[in-house]
């Protein structure tokens, strides 16, 4: 059984007058195995954020379903959704979304606090994460007192601390300088090597080249897929570039090709 299964997902935004309905997701289907590191790429407006919102259970699709470890999202009632999200999913956002009212340490603890986890367990989990994230010194600071890279690392810690089945990252390097971005991507690689499944939406080719599998979305459908195989980062970078060039041109219908 795959960790995540997306089946015939459709999302249509219709305005009040029903004259201009926007199809954000057009029959998307794919599956994600445990331990995969997926990057989703596409132009703005192609539907990648909508797809991520649907997988994050922050939005309900018009039709189709999403199964996480066999559980159908769309069947979970609203009031249980938050708890489900807390226990199974971890989020990293482009603009960090850390609370100004809490220190970094408290921000990281937040999902565990909401789960009523005992304090000693929270501390144990945080201590395990600190070395790899390198945030030991800034835990008592507030978000507005630290740099973007440090904030994003704290956000990653917050995502990891619940031991989620799946990490969802929406443009995680978007607000970072190249060095912090590199550090973050290396971090993602590290946690993926430890078995964490990651789905990342990104614009950046260099970010995507760190992944194992890249999905290209155009007009709400999967246009192309690339598997890394044995390619190095640079080779993958080139392949992605070429695919994007094709994607940006007026290519007609999506063709599924298995890459070499």
């Amino acid at each position, binding site marked *: 059984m795959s960790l995540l299964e997306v089946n015939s997902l459709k999302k249509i935004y219709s305005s009040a007058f029903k004259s201009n309905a926007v199809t954000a997701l057009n029959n998307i289907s794919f599956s994600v195995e445990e331990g995969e590191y997926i990057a989703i790429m596409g132009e703005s407006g192609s539907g990648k954020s909508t797809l991520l919102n649907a997988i994050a259970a922050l*939005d309900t699709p018009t039709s189709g379903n999403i199964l996480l470890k066999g559980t159908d999202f769309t069947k979970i009632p609203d*009031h249980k959704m938050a708890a489900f*999200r807390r226990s199974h999913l971890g989020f990293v956002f482009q603009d960090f979304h850390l*609370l100004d009212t*809490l220190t970094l340490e*408290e921000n990281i603890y*937040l999902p565990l606090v909401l789960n*009523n986890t005992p304090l000693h367990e929270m501390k144990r989990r945080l201590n395990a994460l600190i070395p790899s994230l390198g945030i030991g010194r800034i835990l008592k600071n507030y978000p507005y007192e630290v740099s973007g890279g440090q904030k994003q690392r704290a956000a990653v810690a917050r995502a990891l601390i619940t031991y989620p089945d799946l990490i969802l990252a929406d443009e995680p390097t978007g607000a970072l300088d190249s060095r912090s971005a590199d550090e973050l991507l290396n971090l993602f690689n590290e946690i993926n090597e430890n078995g964490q499944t990651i789905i990342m939406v990104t614009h950046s080719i260099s970010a995507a080249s760190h992944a194992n599998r890249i999905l290209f979305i155009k007009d709400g459908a999967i246009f192309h897929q690339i598997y890394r195989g044995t390619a190095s980062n640079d080779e993958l970078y080139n392949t992605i570039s070429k695919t994007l060039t094709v994607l940006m041109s007026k290519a007609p219908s999506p063709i599924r090709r298995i890459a070499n």
Partner: protein
Amino acid sequence: MKLKLYSKLAVSSIIKNKPLFIPHILSGVIMTAVFFILYALSGSSAIEQLPAGGVALVVLLKYSAILIGFFSIPFLIYTNTTLFKNRAPEFGLYNVLGIGRIAMIPLLFLENLLTYGIVIFSGLFIGSLLFKLAETSLIRIMKGNISYSLHLDLAAAFVTVIWYAFTFLILFLCDSVKLLKNSTVDLLQTSHYGDTPLRHPKLSTVIGLFILTCSYLASFWVGSRGESPTNHSLTCFNLTCGIIISTYLLFVAGSIYFCQKLQQNSEFYFTPKHFITISSLKHRMHRNGSGLASICILATFVLLTLTFSFAFYRGCSTMLSSHYPNDLSIVMQAKEDTSIDNSNAETIEKTLESHGLTSQASSLLSATATSAYSAGIIDMSANVYSQEFQNSRPKKFFPNNDDLVDIRVISLDDYNKLCKTDITLDDNTVLIMSKTAGYTDKVLSLVGCDGHTYAIKTTDTIPPLTELKYNNTYPEGSGIKECYVVVPDISSFLGTDVTGKTSYGYVTYYKEYDVSLSVSKEDQLSIGNAILSDLESSIDHISSELSCATRVEKSDKLSGLSGGLLFLAFIVSLIFILMASLIIYYKQISEGYEDSSQFDIMRKVGLSLNGIHSTVNFQLLLTFFSPIIISGLHLLFLTPILYRLLAFSIVCNKSIIIMTTILSFCTYSIIYFSVYKFTSNSYLKRIANKSNP
């Protein structure tokens, strides 16, 4: 050219930032309107002519207006700080786009000027409308019992304009300092920053407690003196300011302290509903504390005015019977240096006879003297007005007038006639009784005016003088009790040389005639008027002062005038309730606006709607109870002053004031709770709505 650009910018920024500006402007309008109404009322000629309390009320209103004026400054600073904090990114952006920070000062000035214009215009407009409404209703209630002249409230308008110009100038200066001090980056980020932590919360709390204690002590001091608090208006004003300042200190420093202590208790802190609430409270601790303190102070104002209104209403209903106990009462007071003029007494009796009222009239001759009382001995020989006596009085921190007693001497014959008894008195024995229950039980002996000691006669039953009811010489508020002394013969008791004793008003003679009328109200009125006109023309006014009044005549006037006062008191209570409710609403709305993005993030991280509800409920619980409890405490400690004030103007005893205090607290708690329930719903809606994807 620049002016035009800035004016356009100022106008457009106010319009576009409506959600931020409206609460601030609304608060300003309410403050201005209330200040204007109170100030204008204090200058209204209609108010001054209200009974007994009229003059005191003018002073009260003026001081309330001044208090509101002073209170406006910290409150408007609070609303303005919130406004500026949310607009700072905009100013940061202007800076980035090329307007230097010093060049932005005129822009800030224009914005403040515009806000001031809106506030003052709307405030005066609404204030005048309400003021006119209040005044005309008041006149109508008083049924033309006063002479009313069209009152130009330009003076009040002028003062309002100047004072709030000054206030807005302060706001502008605060903003300018913040604008110039912070770097551009800080301005852009400022909406994220928490409030700057108070450097010495412990010290501030201690100072606050100290000021509060002093104010409470001062309140007891004023309230225990046997004189009207209006003689100590400066002290009252100072202690009120002290209470306001200490409330602010305690709430701001106290909430910081409280949050810190709670955070240190990790077991308590790291639970879902406490975690979010306590951290958000700490994040805006200054503004939170100021908001709560403002609510507390306004609640105190409400409680004070409500208590005053209820007590006054209650006191009024008994005022008539205690001030005018007889249907028709004629009182002749001998002027200084004389005894009662017997020819005048005969004139009165002849007039009564001519109206056929002799059988319904009872008369009494009495002499009053304020005497000293200590350790069970009443000393009438002491001259209580002399310097040496005043110096010898015990000096207490809470002075009372227990060492003084107002003696009313009447003759044994009169007493026996009135009470239908047959008591005899031996030589050197007198009879004493008092309206205050149990007062005379402790009296052991009496020293007469000539220094002679008299024993007190005790019999099984001494019928009280219920036939005759008099006004006390001293109002209840003074704490000086009244005591009747029955002697065989008044003049021999007081000594034949009355001239000496009355030369400094030591002893005053009264001859009182109390007539009961059994005819209709209109007839009573006409009889009273007829008698009065007869007596006015025939009495010798050089030797005596005459007063003659029917209860019927007084009752109409009194109910009209007291109705007016009551109406006024309720209007002022209503105004304060409205203000307090608006501040609560404002606090909820502005905090909801700030918190919505936080709750948005939390929802993404996994906070359920139920979680939001329980968090918010805990937050509301913390912020709901503290103001009302502290304001209840303030009310409790300010009650002595209120009691003393009322006891000097109208009838009021301690049980009335206790009951009305409890009643006003319960009434306001209900209103307060409803307002909180209502506004918390709009707070929840704002958060939940924004959080929904």
